[in-house]
């Protein structure tokens, strides 16, 4: 139920922050999504969408960090093996 699907904002309609909507592409499938809870979201941003509402703008920098920790772990393993 708490599933949220990432999609890319293609266009935004409306100026009122709490009621604006956007067309969001989920790998090519385009749906209208409420953007009232992501007032800073802009065209081109990826948003997590749950029951028709965007609940967050996906932070791409943070998304890459998962591989950063992986790098740290591998470095630590190599260090242990050298000992």
């Amino acid at each position, binding site marked *: 139920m708490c*599933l949220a699907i990432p999609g890319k904002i293609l266009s935004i309609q409306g100026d009122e922050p709490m009621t604006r909507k956007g067309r969001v592409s989920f790998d090519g499938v385009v749906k209208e999504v409420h953007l009232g809870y992501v007032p800073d979201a802009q065209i081109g941003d990826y948003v997590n969408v749950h029951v*028709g509402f965007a609940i967050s703008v*996906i932070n791409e920098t943070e998304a890459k960090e998962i591989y950063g920790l992986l790098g740290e772990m591998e470095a630590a393993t190599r260090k242990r093996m050298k000992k």
Partner: protein
Amino acid sequence: MKFDRDFRDASAVKKYIQAVHEITDQPWTIMEICGGQTHAFLRYGIDALLPEEISLLHGPGCPVCVTPVEKIDKAIYLASQRDIILCSFGDMVRVPGSDEDLLSVKSKGGNIRIVYSPTDALTIAEEHPHKQVVFFGIGFETTAPANAMAVLQAEAKQLDNFSLLSSQVLVPPAMEAILSSGTNMVNGFLAAGHVCTVMGYHEYIPIAEKYQSPVVVTGFEPLDLVQGVYLCVRQLQDKCFGVENQYKRSVTKEGNRPAQRTLQKVYKVVDQKWRGIGIIPQSGLALQDEFAQFDAEKKFDLGHISARENQECLSGLVLQGRNKPHECPNFGTRCTPEHPLGATMVSSEGACAAYYRYRVEG
């Protein structure tokens, strides 16, 4: 970056699994809160790759599963009335009430519409001004802002034929109920990434400290889950009991403020009954008095409807992590997704359905 495929990278997942093996030297029990995480663990077989010392318990984070039977009976009553259209998320229509489910009411002519979003129910209300439209608004903190927005929009549009049959639950009080029970086996938690996307994770800091139980806010893709387990085990091994955020691409400490403001405006925190578990203090949301006109229970005077729990179903124990689905004598025999005894076998997030789908059917 692809936000799904990049997080299913098998070689990266294997490296995290290897790292979990390297740091684990004693038994730990970890509970993932969200049913979506349960399904992902089983779907990708991640639980089987973890060290045998790590035991996963599946938490209560399936809103369909914890919606009390009497709410379903109330929905069935409403759907059986000639002048009412009941709108529901698809998962709810096959959950057994005391005597039947919503789908069987629909087959007898009940006007039930399956909708994707609460605002779809608003559209139906606008299109049918001579009918009463009730939205069966269930969910955790993730879904509550959408349900709340439907109420605000109904108010703005002066829709007097729209109301909400509400069953809204909150995660942190349920975690505390599990941790404070005498039978608790959980050492650490993977918190639900999308609940925290809305609420942030400051609520979990006092819980982690009080019960000395690390909490890792975790996403839903395989790489998220193995990293969540790694961070949780690392804290347990180091005797740390803090809150860590694995799902940083969506979750901030303070969460989604506009959504929280809407929740505060529309809802108040109340004691809430959870199916199979009972009443957990201050664990639910009910409409504020100023929105009483949108409360279906008041509008249609549903207080007289009571319910019977199926005594054969162990879902309450499964939801608290006290039993695994396959430990139930009815699992896969008298209880299957086609003929479920309880909600955990119905929902696409229910633990019993996950075990049946990925372990029995393969």
